[in-house]
């Protein structure tokens, strides 16, 4: 059994989201150090505000200001802050019912230790120095000894309303391709292509994924295929991909390696793009130190007869 292959895989996205009128007012308010809630039909004030009543699903839109002070309704001590969380020193997660609100807001509480936190304690907002109209405009809460803070008198209308947020998301993985694909990748490093044969229908899959999709059984028997193959179909790419140093137009094709019952994909080079055709015989070209074929080029053999590859199109 070869060593398990592993590689870091980072998935990172800046999600751009537009806001409706209620969220827009709330987040713009935070930028201006104002906390807004929304009134429900039965007179409750929801903070953070939502656009639809969670009980009746009635549309909501009447914004009211609440205080930037409040009471902890529950808490949990986080001694090891994780990436992206509001504070990088130990803190308490808290649900805070702000003065004037009937529901609680989730955020972080900066406190010296768990003994300094309890349900029912008074807290106030600590504003972030730089504010852009996001929940993180509240840097965190901090302990506070006093009554409700004064309201600013805001009616929820501001100059230059925030209409969207960018929510960056990053997740880190360690990718392992599994048994079948590991064997394939390791063989490629030796400039060999290996497929796997289905014990039931005898088809050879390249690259192997460990299972025959027709029979639903494991493919285990390794079969050497290629290196030459036949172009079964192709397309001409006219859009330059970011971070890819290939001049357009170029040709991307399906290539049935000799001995394989499934075509794999690859770029076709060494031939003008408008001369690539179905049936063209090709072979892999490896770049210096490359762990997989850079592209496939014509072998110079006569084209394959359609009958020989029609099942693979």
């Amino acid at each position, binding site marked *: 059994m070869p060593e398990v292959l592993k590689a870091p895989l980072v998935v990172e996205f800046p999600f751009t989201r537009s806001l409706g009128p209620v969220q827009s007012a709330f987040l713009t308010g935070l930028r201006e150090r104002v906390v807004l809630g929304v009134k429900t039909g039965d007179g409750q004030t929801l903070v953070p505000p939502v656009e639809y009543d969670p009980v009746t699903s009635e549309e909501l839109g009447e914004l009211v200001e609440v205080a930037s002070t409040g009471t902890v309704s529950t808490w*949990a001590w986080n001694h090891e802050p994780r990436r992206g969380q509001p504070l990088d020193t130990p803190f308490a997660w808290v649900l805070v019912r702000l003065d004037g609100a009937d529901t609680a807001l989730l955020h972080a509480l900066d406190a010296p230790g768990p003994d300094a936190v309890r*349900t029912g304690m008074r807290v106030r907002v600590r504003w972030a120095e730089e504010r852009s109209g996001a929940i993180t405009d509240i840097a965190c809460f901090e302990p506070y000894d006093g009554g409700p803070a004064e309201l600013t008198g805001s009616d929820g209308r501001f100059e230059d309303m925030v209409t969207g947020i960018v929510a960056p998301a990053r997740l880190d993985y360690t990718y392992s391709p*599994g048994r*079948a694909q590991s064997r394939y990748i390791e063989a490629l490093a030796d400039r060999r292509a290996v497929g796997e044969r289905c014990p039931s229908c005898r088809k050879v899959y390249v690259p192997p994924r460990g299972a025959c999709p027709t029979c639903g059984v494991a493919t285990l028997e390794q079969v050497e295929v290629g290196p030459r193959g036949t172009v079964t179909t192709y397309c001409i790419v006219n859009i330059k991909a970011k971070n890819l140093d290939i001049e357009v137009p170029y040709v991307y094709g399906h290539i049935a390696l000799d001995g394989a019952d499934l075509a794999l994909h690859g770029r076709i080079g060494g031939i003008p793009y408008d001369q690539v055709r179905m049936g063209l015989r090709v072979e892999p070209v490896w770049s210096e130190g490359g762990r997989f074929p850079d592209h496939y080029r014509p072998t110079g053999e006569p084209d394959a007869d359609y009958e020989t590859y029609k099942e693979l199109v």
Partner: protein
Amino acid sequence: MPAPRPQRDIAVVAFAQTDHLRTSDELSEVEMLMPVLHEVLDRTGLRTSDIGFTCSGSTDYLAGRAFSFTMALDGVGAWPPISESHVEMDGAWALYEAWTKLLTGEADTALVYAYGKSSPGSVRDVLTRQLDPYYVAPLWPDSIALAALQAQVLIDAGDTDEPALAAVAARSRASAAGNSHAQLRGSVPRGDYAVRPLRTGDCPPIGDGAAAVILAAGERARDLCKRPAWIRGIDHRIEAHGLGVRDLTDSPSARLAAERAGVFERPVDTAELHAPFSSQEVVLRKALRLDDSVDINPSGGPLAANPIMAAGLIRIGEAAARIHRGDSNRALAHATSGPCLQQNLVAVLEGDPR
């Protein structure tokens, strides 16, 4: 309102699961899943081509790859084309979809499977991506932190305390001693605080695993299984996403689902609860009115093995397997999704009288 009686008798006729392990990085998802699919088919003598409908549950966020479930389809023989569907949810919800498909009469058998490989990423971070993206997700509150907030509410309300939570975990892992598939079995230390008041012992293990069940309707179920586990009712409900809107000591959605599934019409003898945290069992026991006469999580439950996306389906499978074996006559199975038991599915399974 009495629960409506299903139009057709539908039963779980077979169940299989992997051993649940901290990592399975030598296997791809389909390689991990395939033995389970073969085992559940072998139990009934069916072949994939005999199955009327196939439905699966998994999530791309665990794999970090878009449309990751399509790779797993190789394991069910999806060529020539089959009738197939997928839910980006726990497999319990895939089972719900399969159950409705069988109710329509369009199929007589269904294969439901679910899998999750948590080992490539960080589950605590991955699960933050299911939260409200405007007000909550930008703060990256992880799954343990949110469960800990709920645990503190319960402690403040006098519904539990830290020793009682430790007892839930200890009982679960002791029960898991009889479950060869479980990841954590026997005596497991309470551990240090993960996020106070929850200790590592109150939290589920992180692991990789898969499960599959076969459903069949009417006489077909009797042909395939000596004692089918008839689904007498199944329902799922959701509550507000805002944590500060909800009463975290209660689970009205679980109670409503249970009521609509017919749980409260007659006592159950077994309950398989998808409560990944010890504190959530406290909430569910109260919401589902389960007293000490009910055998709770005899498999060890999710505190013993919690493969994300499969753990809820496993609750249904474990409850059904007890009926198949004759250890239960009427069992409740529960699955959850979202932070602090936001979404809940409840099924009632019964065996024929003996």
